[in-house]
């Protein structure tokens, strides 16, 4: 088993990156790898509830996030600094995410076998 860390850095709409990264996370989860899923920078916007991109002819990728638990992905982190810079609070988020600081993220990355960032 390997430890794979995923850094979600892009906003939920405007590119296919959030979906591309989520698909990687779910695939790795199906193969029962140890996963850290970290939301940072504009990626924290993916965690906001009640998004409706239907007028963009786009699917709401964030709607799939509550399914992470079913896949056994329970190490979900959100960067405190990114939340603060955007005026967001951890209690507003769609799924439970452990708040963490840059130092902790550094440790998570250092302890990972592989890191993917989108």
């Amino acid at each position, binding site marked *: 088993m390997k430890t794979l860390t995923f850094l979600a850095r892009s906003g939920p709409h405007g590119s*296919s990156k959030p979906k591309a990264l989520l*698909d*990687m996370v779910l*695939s790795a989860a*199906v*193969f029962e*790898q140890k996963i850290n899923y970290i939301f940072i920078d504009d990626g924290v916007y993916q965690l906001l509830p009640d998004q409706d991109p239907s007028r963009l002819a786009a699917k709401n990728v964030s709607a799939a996030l509550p399914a992470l638990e079913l896949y056994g992905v329970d190490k979900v982190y959100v960067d405190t600094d990114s939340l603060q810079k955007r005026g967001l609070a951890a209690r507003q988020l769609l799924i439970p995410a452990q708040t963490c600081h840059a130092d902790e993220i550094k440790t998570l990355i250092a302890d990972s076998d592989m890191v*993917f*960032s989108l």
Partner: protein
Amino acid sequence: MIISLVIHGAPGATQGPQTALSFCQAALDAGHQIYRLFFYEDGVHNAHALSVWPQDERDLNNDWASLVRRNNLDAVVCVASALKRGVLNEEEAARYEKQAASLDSAFDISGLGQWVDACLNSDRVVSFGV
């Protein structure tokens, strides 16, 4: 060292694919083993057989296919990414009743499972063009 590459980004549009190509060649020259090349999202455009490049530009599509053939590499395009972007092999073209196949035969179509497998079997997985 056993290395796999994940290639994002279309050739000519972003620098990533060209850097990946150079990295791959350099790794092979240095005696490393390339376990797999995984082309994801816009990266599948690197596997297009139908692209025609201007004469004064480096034909990255041709260079990828030659590199894969020359070194007998395992090169996979992500099926979901590829179908959406019209990168189809004969089998997929027939299945979806499209008029042409566009995937260079140096590449295979498969899923993200192949990327996970690359993670499990490589010492390093390096992403390009993110």
